């Protein structure tokens, strides 16, 4: 809300410059969002917390300032509704409220012989400063009262409504044209003010166009009522109509203020529009509010605040806040005024004390009390995350909503949102890959040559609930440079990364197998198995979904980590140098390297490291043939191997390989 400095000073003497007043309000928990200092005034834009509807008015703010600065309020709104007025049959009116839940109180007054004209500057200027457009004296007065005392009022043209006011629920499908000229369709969750024919206002939100005050109005009905805050809020939200009135009603305007607000408006209407009160003022519920009491304990509140606030200080603060103490000091009860219905329990009173002594007067302490059973979840996730940058990946984060077509491709049962933010992304992600693919493409389009990103996060399916996953995508090319030609990223770049990740995670027992995941291109992808359980897949992502070559991997993180050896066992170092032997064999082109590597491993008696150092295809090798060159490093933990021992191993290797159809390359 907006409020100007000069209006506040009409209510309370303020010794502070606007800037210092703003700071003081901040420290009371009334956040000043903006301070606009003009030539001879200042305008405060305030963010009022939802528990303090009383502060959405000049009166409420002045009350708070007076309490904090130890001042008395200079102005009190205490107008009486004039008793005598002409009883005139001409001005008959009946008010019915269908439900006290919906409308706890309704006061209607009829004002006659009003003269519509522009408001005097004192009213119009203040309205403008507080962000409300001045229209005419009648409408302005209702708004002026709203701003000053915080209670919304409404004025109907008496001659445009039937002689009966009914506060009721709207019928489904019933419509009303609002003051803004828009036709709104209503439901039975909306409260309306109706005459005997149709709705004339949406209760607490906005008036109807037909029943509104116009240049020709002579007699008006002034409404001061209290509507169900929850229903007002529903209606305002549903119709996307947020008004000064709904803003206050939905926050529980002060029900104790109704009569005063009416009387004040009647006074102003007489003063500035020459209006006369006629007929009987109708009040459906003359004494609606029962004062509430809250138990209090000086000692408990001090313990909660962690500060020894003296009893006298507490009493002084309560007194300034119109909180009356009842009963003895051992078991006092605090009587809460109608405008402070946010105070319901002792802790609320503790906050009042905290606010008024100032939170900065509570000295910060830190002390261990009891032992705490330490569990540190998420450690492993961080550990995995930390490996990825060293493998060349940047960490990405995505909003976990995706298109439902992904779940269809995966044949998974997705979890659907009832109210998606983006209509095309209506399910919770069933895989991390789609968002990573988009990110890869965006980066490639913006000129990046090689993009490698990963994400750790949850996926969601109806069958498996929430699962923590790690996914990574890799695309583009290794850019050319002075020591190396450019080359596109391929499957083996990714495979090397996957194997390194497994090594760094201490996962020794695993297998690769064919990949059946429809997100991947079968001929260029493998799945990872640990203890016969599939952990996930890696390889070229299906062209149908990517359109460009993107390599990806997605593993279930918990399953992956289940294969990690927790205890590291030192295996000794080898003091004796290995012997290196290179071995070139020729085999059929379609045969997998791994068969031959395993054969070598099996054939060698000693310890051996095997590297593939060359693949060669050429007419000299033969048609549909290829040559593989292995480098073997043979070693023994306790001695240097002799030539004879090496030769024996090599002979075994050659024998075994020839059984597989390989022959030595000449």
């Amino acid at each position: 809300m907006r409020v100007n400095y000069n209006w506040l000073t009409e209510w309370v003497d303020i010794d502070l410059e606007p800037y210092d007043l703003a700071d003081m309000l901040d420290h009371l928990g009334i956040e000043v969002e903006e301070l606009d200092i003009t030539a001879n005034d200042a305008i405060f834009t305030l963010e009022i917390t939802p528990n303090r509807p009383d502060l959405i008015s000049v009166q409420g703010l002045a009350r708070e300032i007076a309490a904090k600065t130890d001042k008395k309020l200079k102005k009190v709104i205490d107008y009486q509704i004039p008793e005598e007025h002409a009883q005139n049959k001409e001005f008959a009116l009946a008010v019915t409220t269908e439900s006290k839940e919906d409308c706890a109180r309704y006061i209607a007054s009829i004002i006659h012989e009003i003269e519509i004209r522009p408001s005097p500057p004192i009213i119009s200027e203040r309205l403008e400063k507080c962000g409300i457009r001045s229209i005419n004296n009648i409408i302005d007065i209702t708004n002026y009262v709203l701003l000053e005392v915080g209670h919304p009022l409404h004025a109907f043209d008496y001659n445009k409504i039937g002689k009966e006011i009914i506060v009721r629920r709207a019928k489904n499908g019933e419509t009303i044209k609002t003051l803004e000229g828009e036709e709104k369709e209503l439901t039975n969750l909306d409260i309306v003010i109706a005459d005997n024919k149709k709705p004339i206002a949406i209760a607490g939100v906005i008036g109807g166009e037909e029943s509104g005050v116009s240049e020709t109005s002579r007699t008006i009905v002034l409404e001061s009522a209290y509507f169900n805050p929850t229903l007002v809020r529903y209606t305002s939200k549903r119709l996307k109509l947020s008004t000064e009135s709904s803003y206050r009603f939905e926050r529980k305007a002060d029900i104790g203020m109704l009569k005063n607000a009416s009387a004040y408006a009647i006074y102003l209407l007489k003063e500035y529009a020459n209006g006369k009160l006629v007929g009987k003022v109708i009040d459906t519920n003359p004494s609606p509010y029962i004062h509430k009491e809250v138990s209090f304990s000086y000692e408990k509140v001090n313990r909660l605040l962690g500060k020894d606030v003296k009893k006298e200080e507490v009493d002084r603060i309560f007194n300034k806040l119109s909180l009356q103490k009842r009963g003895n000091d051992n078991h006092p009860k605090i009587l809460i005024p109608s405008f402070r219905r946010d105070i319901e329990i002792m802790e609320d009173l503790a906050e009042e004390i905290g606010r008024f002594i100032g939170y900065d007067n509570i000295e910060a302490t830190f002390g261990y009390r009891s032992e705490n059973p330490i569990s540190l979840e998420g450690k492993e996730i961080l550990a995995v995350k930390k490996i990825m940058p060293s493998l060349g990946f940047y960490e990405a984060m995505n909003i976990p909503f995706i298109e439902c077509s992904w779940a269809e491709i995966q044949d998974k049962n997705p979890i659907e949102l009832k109210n998606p933010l983006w209509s095309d992304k209506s399910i919770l992600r069933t895989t991390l890959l789609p968002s990573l693919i988009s990110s890869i493409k965006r980066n490639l389009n913006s000129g990046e040559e090689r993009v490698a990103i990963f994400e750790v996060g949850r996926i969601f399916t109806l069958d498996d609930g929430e699962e923590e996953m790690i996914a990574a995508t890799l695309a583009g090319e290794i850019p050319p440079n002075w020591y190396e030609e450019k080359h596109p990223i391929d499957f083996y770049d990714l495979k090397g990364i996957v194997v390194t990740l497994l090594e760094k995670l201490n996962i020794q027992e695993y297998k690769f197998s064919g990949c059946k995941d429809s997100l991947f291109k079968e001929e260029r992808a493998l799945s990872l198995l640990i203890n016969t359980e599939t952990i996930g897949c890696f390889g070229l992502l299906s062209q149908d979904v990517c359109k460009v070559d993107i390599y990806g991997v997605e593993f279930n993180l918990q399953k992956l980590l289940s294969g990690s050896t927790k205890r590291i066992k030192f295996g000794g170092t080898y003091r004796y140098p290995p012997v290196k032997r290179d071995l070139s064999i020729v085999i059929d082109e379609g045969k997998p390297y791994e068969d031959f590597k395993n054969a070598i491993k099996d054939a060698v008696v000693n310890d051996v490291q095997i590297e593939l150092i060359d693949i060669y295809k050429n007419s000299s090798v033969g048609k549909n043939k290829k040559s593989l060159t292995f480098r073997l490093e043979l070693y023994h933990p306790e001695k240097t191997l002799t030539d004879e021992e090496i030769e024996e191993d090599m002979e075994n290797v050659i024998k075994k390989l020839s059984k597989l159809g390989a022959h030595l390359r000449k």
Partner: protein
Amino acid sequence: MKLNELEKNAKKEIEQSVCVDELEKVRIRYLGRKCELTRILHSIGDLPMEERPKFGRVVNKLKNELEGLIEKKKRALEKSKTLPWADLSLPGRRPFIGNLHPLTILYQEIINVFIEMGFSIVFGPEIETEYYNFTALNTPPDHPARDMQDTFYLKDGRLLRTQTSPVQIRTLEKHAPPLRIISPGRCYRVDTFDPLHSPAFMQIEGLWVDRDVSMADLFGTLKIFTRKIFGEETIIEFLPSYFPFTEPSADLWIQCPFCRGIGCTVCKKKGRIETLGCGMVHPNILKNMGYPEFTGFAFGIGLERIAMIKYNINDMRLFYQNDLKFLRQFNESKL
């Protein structure tokens, strides 16, 4: 050859050697197996008994001295040995190394501060029920936060948690206080994706329940947190605020790091920036959990918000666009 003559020649030749090979020849000539010095040493038999020890010492001393000189000269020569010219201005061969996301870097930093203070770290589900997300946290049935305009609901009636506080309830169900926990994780709210909002965001919540925990303890804990994250000199302030699950409630503000409190556009001339919300756990929550005799405090840290303040980032969407030009700027050691 006389000993001192040999010494003079040897030193001169060592001095005048211009390369390592030449120096090696000098070494062999004077200190090798068949060298002058050995010969002289062997001639010790010609001397009278009483002079032999002294002579031996002198010769050995010279031997050691020459060895030292040769070693020194060798080092000097090696140092001045030249290699063919190379263009050292050429770029080096660089390995590909990535970065963690800035939110992860900050997450680790924050978590560590609380681990040092003895907090446990507890995770929970992102899909929650209304009970854990609202009801158990003292959110009234008609509170606006429960609306579809603010909360993502699933077709099966469950919802995406709007805060990580449900973890607090789940933990209190399993463990009796006293306890100190941090519950981090992703939360969701129906917000447009704009510079200041995101439908999904990271939150780190803290809860400390014990006998007679006070606001002073809350302020103390968060003071340590802010100083460790924003620097020891950071000036902080607690201002009253409102949340349905805490009473009394407060907002923690830190002195604006951009203008040092003078007032600028970032802090809207306030000189301070709202950083996080906190308060004493609402007694209804502890009562519902069966621990009315305890008090506690809770706080909620928005990771994106802290990162925006700390790294001067003005658009929250940058965290979720995965632009390498953005991600590359966050080297862990730099932060």
